[in-house]
């Protein structure tokens, strides 16, 4: 009788618990708090937080290769790169590229903001990360979760948890991180600029956009194909207006389903052994740096464009060149309306914002091509 009892205790998880596990529980609880109470990206942070918790309960072997339940989610969903493109399908079905089509100049802002990635890439190399790791950290500056996960899982899978959490955390913190940078780099006068009304966009243009963009980008940067093809297919569904069921399935059901597996798997990569090392702190620091540099780059490109433009743009919209859609555009709108209450920048900012998504994918593809 005593033996059975003893056996039960020794085969329980308690004896295998480490201090590191408990630190990870704490991190998990903090993320749960941020997701539930503060509603910071709860759709992703909540499954991530729970994934962290359960993978740090010893002897469950949930991430044991070829055996664990969550390992299978991780392997088929992330290691084989299936989930991020499916998320892009859903994003494409939700994104309105109209403001970008109406004002194609804003594509430059979406591209300009990617300059931050390259700065961070070199900064990370200086800090002693190898090239693959540096690229995975730099992409955080693009503020695009699925792209960050896609690139990290290919180049530096051991950093996946840290880069993903950092990307999603900074996206949620856009309203805190961006405004000081925006105010520092623009004058009150510039922030007050009211932009020229956007021209209307025809249905034909809306339908042609995903087709032409898909062809152009995939011909120029073939490694961008998995993400761009799905993004543009989703957008074609939406703009064609004839396959409402597919549009809704892509942007709702399918997206929600894969989000569960994505969040849980990303969280489950964060065992105490992989996550609790000083490198991770650097990743969060460099990720923040990337985000700030990208925001600044977008603002500066906008100011440079104004030197040449007759109808001045409000340089604030450059900050929306990071791809956190639509958080960055909202943030631009808010800062703009603080300077001039009759300034409604939301739709103008959506142009560079959606261009930023495309820009981040292209930047990731270039990194992948050279380092993969």
């Amino acid at each position, binding site marked *: 009788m005593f033996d059975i009892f003893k056996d039960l205790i020794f085969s329980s998880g308690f004896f295998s618990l480490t201090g590191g596990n408990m630190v990870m529980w704490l991190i998990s609880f903090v993320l749960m708090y941020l997701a539930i109470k503060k509603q910071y990206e709860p759709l992703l942070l909540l499954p991530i937080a729970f994934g962290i918790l359960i993978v740090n309960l010893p002897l469950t072997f949930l991430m044991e290769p070829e055996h664990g339940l969550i390992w299978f989610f991780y392997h088929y969903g992330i290691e084989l790169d299936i989930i991020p493109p499916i998320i892009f399908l859903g994003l494409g079905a939700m994104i309105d590229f109209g403001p970008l089509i109406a004002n194609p100049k804003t594509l430059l802002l979406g591209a300009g903001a990617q300059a931050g990635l390259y700065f961070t890439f070199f900064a990370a190399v200086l800090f002693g990360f190898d090239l693959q790791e540096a690229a995975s950290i730099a992409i955080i500056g693009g503020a695009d979760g699925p792209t960050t996960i896609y690139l990290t899982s290919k180049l530096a899978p051991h950093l996946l948890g840290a880069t993903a959490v950092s990307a999603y955390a900074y996206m949620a913190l856009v309203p805190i991180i961006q405004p000081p940078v925006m105010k520092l780099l623009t004058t009150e006068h510039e922030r007050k600029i009211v932009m020229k*009304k*956007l021209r209307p966009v025809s249905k034909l243009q809306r339908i042609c956009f995903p087709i032409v963009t898909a062809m152009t980008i995939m011909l120029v940067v073939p490694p961008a194909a998995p993400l761009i093809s799905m993004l543009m297919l989703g957008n074609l569904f939406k703009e064609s207006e004839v396959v409402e069921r597919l549009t809704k399935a892509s942007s709702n059901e399918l997206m929600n389903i894969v989000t569960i597996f994505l969040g849980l798997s990303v969280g489950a990569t964060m065992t105490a052994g992989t996550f609790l090392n000083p490198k991770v702190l650097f990743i969060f620091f460099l990720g923040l740096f990337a985000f700030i540099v990208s925001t600044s780059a977008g603002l500066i490109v906008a100011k440079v464009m104004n030197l040449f433009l007759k109808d001045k743009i409000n340089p604030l919209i450059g900050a929306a060149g990071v791809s956190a859609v*639509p958080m960055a*555009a*909202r943030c631009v*709108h*808010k800062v703009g*309306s603080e300077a001039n*209450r*009759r300034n*409604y920048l*939301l*739709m103008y900012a*959506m142009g560079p914002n959606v261009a930023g998504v495309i820009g981040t994918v292209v930047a990731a593809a270039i990194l992948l091509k050279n380092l993969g």
Partner: protein
Amino acid sequence: MPELLSPIAGNVWKILVAVGDKVEMDDELIILEALKMETPIFSEDNGTITEIKIKEGDAVNEGDLLIVVG
């Protein structure tokens, strides 16, 4: 007769005035919701509201007539 046009596409979240109300320049008249963000719309004239063309929950496009101030 001055007309207040919607500066932005979105949904009418709240209407803060009624027909007959006296309003002044820069009074907050309507709150629109676009991309899950509340955007207040301010009066561009002094006067009395003579007509409200929208109701709460309506979807409006940029340039749609919202309110007539007499």
